[in-house]
């Protein structure tokens, strides 16, 4: 597919599910360049001129379309900051599959800073899937995603943000502003191992009446890795906000979670929960009584937890 070598093809599939030319609009970025781009009738992808990245214009009333915009880095030492802006019209229902995979077998760090800004029109629904992973025996694979969402009236965004493995360090920033009756669901899944570090900050400003945000972070920290979570929900109107950070800590890892709530309105209903703990012994025991070894049981529990 498109002159990619096997490693690049495997990475592409891992982070975006893409194995050939997908239907609908797409932009494939490999080693700093777009190697394939296609707009559709209602989704127009325009490269930016003053900086790296693309503008994606989704016309009003676009329904059931998927845009694929995966990024692969296989050249060691490549560092890039890519800015993608999504302008989603009114009354749309679209899915955006992003994702970035880094393969590094060299001695210099490879870094991808992805800044995605969404402007979501009235009554629209956006499903956003972003998977990150790093492979290769070489130096750093660093992925720093920034995701900003501006949700218009009556709109809905569901974001699945996954870091599955191999990312040496990440600073993740997710920010949302919600207008009247807008709803946001964020599912973050983070897995760190070795000596990796991950920092994640999520800020949701519930500005409009009857807006709501449900933010759930599930993380597993193994070996000597370190994770830091900060979430901040600000309820500036009659609204509902829920922030949950659930982490499994193993071996000699460190996890720090700081959920914060700020209510600026008497009708703001805000809840935060944070729980950090090792894998529950009883869960391990139950799976072991089903014939799994302790290791296998751990793997099953972690897989289920991060699904």
């Amino acid at each position, binding site marked *: 597919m498109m002159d990619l070598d096997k490693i690049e093809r495997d990475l592409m599939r891992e982070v975006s599910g893409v194995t050939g030319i997908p239907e609908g609009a797409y932009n494939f970025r490999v080693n700093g360049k777009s190697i394939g781009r296609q707009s559709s009738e209602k989704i127009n992808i325009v490269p930016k001129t003053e900086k790296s990245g693309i503008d994606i214009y989704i016309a009003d009333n676009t329904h059931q379309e998927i845009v694929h915009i995966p990024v692969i880095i296989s050249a060691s030492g490549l560092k890039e900051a890519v800015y993608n802006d999504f302008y989603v019209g009114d009354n749309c229902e679209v899915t955006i599959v992003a994702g970035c995979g880094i393969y590094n077998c060299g001695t210099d760090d490879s870094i991808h800073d992805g800044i995605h800004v969404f402007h979501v029109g009235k009554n629209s629904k956006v499903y956003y899937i972003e998977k990150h992973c790093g492979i290769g025996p070489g130096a750093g694979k660093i992925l720093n995603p920034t995701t900003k969402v501006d949700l218009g009236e009556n709109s809905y965004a569901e974001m699945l943000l996954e870091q599955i493995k191999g990312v040496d360090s990440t600073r993740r920033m997710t920010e949302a502003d919600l207008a009247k009756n807008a709803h946001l669901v964020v599912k973050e899944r983070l897995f760190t191992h070795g000596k990796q570090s991950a920092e994640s900050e999520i800020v949701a400003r519930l500005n409009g009446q009857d807006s709501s945000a449900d933010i759930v972070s599930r993380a597993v920290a193994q070996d000597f890795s370190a994770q830091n979570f900060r979430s901040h929900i600000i309820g500036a109107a009659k609204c509902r906000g829920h922030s949950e950070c659930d982490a499994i800590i193993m071996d000699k890892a460190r996890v720090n979670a700081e959920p914060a709530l700020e209510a600026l309105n008497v009708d703001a209903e805000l809840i935060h929960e944070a729980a950090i703990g090792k894998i529950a012994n009883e869960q391990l025991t139950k799976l072991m009584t089903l014939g799994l070894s302790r290791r296998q049981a751990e793997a099953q*529990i972690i897989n289920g937890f991060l699904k």
Partner: protein
Amino acid sequence: MLQVKGVSFKGILKGISFDVRPGELVVITGPNGSGKSTLAKIIAGVEKSDAGEIIFKDEDIVKKDCTERARMGLAFSFQQPVRFKGLTVRDLLKIAASGSEAFLDNEMKEVDGYLKKVGLEPALYLDREVNASLSGGELKRIEIASVLARDAVLSIFDEPEAGIDIWSFDNLVKMFKDMRKKNPKRAIVIISHQERIMKIADRIILLENGEISAHGTPEQMMARIGGGLK
């Protein structure tokens, strides 16, 4: 197939000895606090005894952990079902049905039948997460289904009736009868307070204060237990 010899545990169990033969359904009963649950957990490998031998299939399994015992064909149904985060009913039953070798080979078997046996409609439950979103009764039935899926040589059920409310109790009794009929060479041990379960047993063992105070057939034992146990 199972010989428990002189098993003791911290003063809760004092020198327990009994046998279970192939094809038998043995019920262990007794007042609360008599050590029944502890005994079941010790046989399953979930707890470690202080003294004694446990011979299963001609091997002393005292030093074997619960994984090894499970792989030898011993299955255990917890009194309090375990809740997970993210594992679905399908996941749990597939793990149970596959056994460790098949799991490593990534072979999976169909699991719908086990849910039907415990009175749950597969389409409604397979994709549910095994967590607090399920009622106590549903979790208990899924727990029992996970043991049925093991198709074990020796199945131990710790108070299977606890939490069963919606599903009629008769179905639970029928399920045990069917288990026996299907596999006449296997054995079942049930920790129970329920008269209707005791009535289908081949033998009943009465545990009181950590010791076996009596044992015999249901006819012999019912007279002794009388109205003392429901």
